């Protein structure tokens, strides 16, 4: 059970700014933590720590002083209590695929890596839930469910490596969120170690629990509400059938209108992914799928459901695409053809690698009907800065991912990329959207918070944060801007990410 040997914790003591390697507290801390996780569960040599100095967001780097790999909730709790005793900051890390710097240990401290807690604790089809440890890789859960007729619905494009704990912290989405929702719609409950080491449970395996929906508040906390040590997630019935189509349009406007009309018809596609002409050219150069090079947009449309309903939905979609000047449509009716179509979407990023030595993927949201405006703005921004920007994104949700291509070796270009990103996100806000649909605020977008929310909003969020994390000892300086930062608007990064695809 929980280690209760820790002495009284001085909650008013400031969290340490720096832990000196080799100092006495450092050695003592190592000794105590080794006592908890064992010699094979801890790293503290500088060269071993390098791997942990950043996540998928490589702009800012800061290595932790110590990394631990607990295998039980009790070890996590004991580790957290020791950190409190030593006033050393700590934070959780899953697979480290965050694209907003969520895993950046600001000011160093202890990193708690959950990848060794990866068991499935219970699969219950009758009651439609699974209980898993937080380090479980997203795809492994769905793989474990193969053949049962059920799956875990949230499927971020990083699902082959990202963890359920990381998904809960960031409220991850993915290509199928239009129909199936994001992570928060599929989390029933969880166990967490609070930043003072207390173990709590929120929600549960039942369809709801009385009282405030605190597991709902917990999802999307970006690691600032302690460490999630167990997740109870909803399982979703597999669709019986799929139909996938690739529709080539002359303009983004036509493609967007087609989307609106399909949905207005009562059809909610399970995926609606768009590629603009820039990315079409890149994909063509690389893979020769046969897309016309002068096409304005290619739309990947997927519907799923009962076999009996598929043909009617497909013909309706074809009709609406035709009405909106579609140039051509490829259909996939077999699993093999479907794989081929998805390949063009998934390989889009590989193709970008051929276009440019470095690229930066942004994450903004606009109301779906404003897609033509934001894409036109992105094109203007591209011309203004002399940067090539291509787009491949979740069109059904209005979630754009402009990819800014540049050469990392040219400092001038780096600044341009940062400024262009900033302008694009600002435009998303102006159009009534958001600066992040799924990657999170992390450290990357913290300056935007005071532009989206007013002081009262932020103060209320801070009150909630302080219930979980009053000392800000857990994942400090994330999500909420520090006091007194005012309306800091200038681009502060020094280096854009050569970010991974999504």
């Amino acid at each position, binding site marked *: 059970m929980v280690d209760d040997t820790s002495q009284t914790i001085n909650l008013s003591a400031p969290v340490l700014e720096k832990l000196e390697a080799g100092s006495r507290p450092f050695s003592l801390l190592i000794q105590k933590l080794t006592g908890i996780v064992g010699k094979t569960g801890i790293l503290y040599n500088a060269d071993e720590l390098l791997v942990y100095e950043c996540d998928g967001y490589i702009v800012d780097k800061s290595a932790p002083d110590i990394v631990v790999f607990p295998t039980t909730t009790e070890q996590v709790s004991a580790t957290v209590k020791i950190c409190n005793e030593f006033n050393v900051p700590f934070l959780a890390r899953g697979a480290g695929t965050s694209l907003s710097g969520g895993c950046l240990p600001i000011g160093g401290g202890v990193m708690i890596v959950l990848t060794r807690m990866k068991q499935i604790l219970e699969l*219950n*089809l*009758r*009651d439609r839930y699974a209980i898993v440890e937080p380090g479980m890789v997203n795809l492994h859960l769905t793989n474990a469910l193969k053949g049962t007729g059920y799956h875990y619905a949230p499927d971020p494009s990083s699902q082959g490596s990202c963890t359920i704990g990381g998904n809960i912290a960031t*409220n991850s989405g993915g290509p199928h969120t239009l129909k199936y*929702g994001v992570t*928060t719609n599929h989390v029933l409950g969880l166990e967490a170690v609070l930043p003072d080491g207390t173990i709590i*449970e*929120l*929600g*549960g395996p*039942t*369809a*709801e*629990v*009385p*009282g*405030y*929906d*605190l597991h*709902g*508040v917990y*999802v*999307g906390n970006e690691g600032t509400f302690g460490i999630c040590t167990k997740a109870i997630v909803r399982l979703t*019935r597999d669709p019986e059938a799929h139909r996938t189509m690739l529709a080539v349009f002359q303009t983004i406007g036509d493609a967007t209108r087609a989307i*609106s009309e399909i*949905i207005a018809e*009562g*059809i*909610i596609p399970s995926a609606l992914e768009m590629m603009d002409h820039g990315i079409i050219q890149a994909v063509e150069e690389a893979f020769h799928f046969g897309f016309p090079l002068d096409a304005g947009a290619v739309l990947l449309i997927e519907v799923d459901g*009962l076999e009996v*309903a598929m043909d*009617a939905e497909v013909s309706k979609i074809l009709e609406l695409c035709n009405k909106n000047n579609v140039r051509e449509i490829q259909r996939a009716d077999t699993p093999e053809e479907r794989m081929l179509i998805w390949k063009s979407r998934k390989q889009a990023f590989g193709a970008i690698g051929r276009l440019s030595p470095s690229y930066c993927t942004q994450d903004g949201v*606009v*109301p*779906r009907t404003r897609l033509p405006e934001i894409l036109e703005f992105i094109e203007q921004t591209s011309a203004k800065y002399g940067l090539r920007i291509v787009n491949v994104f*979740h069109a059904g*949700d*209005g*979630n754009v991912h402009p990819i800014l291509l540049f050469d990392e070796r040219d400092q001038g270009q780096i600044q341009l990329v940062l400024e262009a990103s900033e302008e694009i996100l600002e435009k998303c806000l102006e159009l*009534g*959207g*958001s*600066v992040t*649909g799924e990657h999170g*605020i992390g450290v990357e*977008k913290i300056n935007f*918070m005071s532009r*989206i*929310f007013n002081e*009262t*909003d932020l*103060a*209320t*969020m801070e*009150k*909630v*944060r302080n*219930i*979980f994390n009053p000392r800000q000892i857990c994942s400090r300086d994330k999500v909420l801007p520090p006091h007194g930062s005012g309306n800091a608007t200038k681009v502060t990064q020094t280096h854009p990410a050569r970010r991974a695809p999504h």
Partner: protein
Amino acid sequence: MSPLSSGSQEEFVPASQTELSRFMTENAAVDHRQLFPVGGRTSLAVCCPASQTGIQLCTSQLNRVVDYPIRDLTITVEAGMRIDELIKIVSAEGQRLPLDVPQSNRATIGGVIATNINGPKRFSYGTIRDYVIGISAIDGMGNLFKSGGRVVKNVAGYDLGKMLVGSLGTLAVISQVSLNLRPKPQSMSMVWFQFDSCQTIDQALEAVVTSGTRPIAVEYCNAKAASQIAAEARLELPADHHTLCVCYEGPENEVRWQTDKIASEWNQFSPLHVQTVENEEATRLYDAFTEYQTSSDDPVTIKAILLPSQMMKFIETATQLNIAVQAHAADGIVFGHLPDSASSLDDVQQIFNQLKTTIDPKTGYLNIYQCESDWSDSLPLFCSPPAGWDLMKQFKNALDPEHLLNSQRFNELVEI
């Protein structure tokens, strides 16, 4: 029910959110009166027992549409908008909020969020938590705050909307909300099955897990409830036994295929009766299921939240106790109207104790859903503290430090 008759309550009807915020700021600074947010007054028996004295904050004039970008399938409205009004507005565009709300002519969207009202469709569409994409509310000190936004996908900042779902007016007064909408389906049908025992019902429910069909809702009712529901729907349906009623929506051919399919799948459980209900009759029957949880004149309605696999054991006992039982069966949500014979608080408590023996306290909750006003002070709403209760108290203290928002009730929420 009109629970507000005996306490002394004044009313404040703000014309705008800022006016409400100003009023609450002043109340926190000067008057320190107890405040009771009220919407359509459909659930006050639960949230706001009669004996309390203070001021009702009535949202009836906060009923405007703030923004309805139709093609984006989102809408932003003030919290006092009545559900029927909301339905009318979005329905004209072929859209809906896929949520079942009893007494929707009175209930408001703010009240639906605060009480987390839902119904049969929750099995396939989830609950209000899944549709709130942005929220504004005013805390006990008068601070008007918001979270989320007006787009369907957004992870900027903490999701404060979730904490207000089911908060029963104890944390903040919800003043505005942005919702995600869905297209209206083309048609709907229901299939009414009668089975001979709880055991068979349980088997049929287990078979839903791998059914070739995709039901929108799976409703259970025992004989007592079934006859009332059929009568309410003005339908001749056999109601002497246990009923399972399965609902399908979508294009007509898809719905018909599924109603046939479920009948053949469940044939192996030898139903005593199978009847497909279509068109307006299906709508009437569906509405009767939606209304039933709040429709009773009986003194106490209970709600149990159980794992579906453990539900029939509870229902069997409840039926023996002459309780009229309805359940959103595939979700394990059970409502029971206690019989008239439960005429004293003691009787109610005894029934409770018997029911509790069938519940695993780790994975089940037995709550009061509605009760006669005289008893509501004595009966805690949540009979056992839910997971995270200590944190919930901290939320209460953080958002309403002076305990001005429906606070006596908050303290009575759980049995100590």
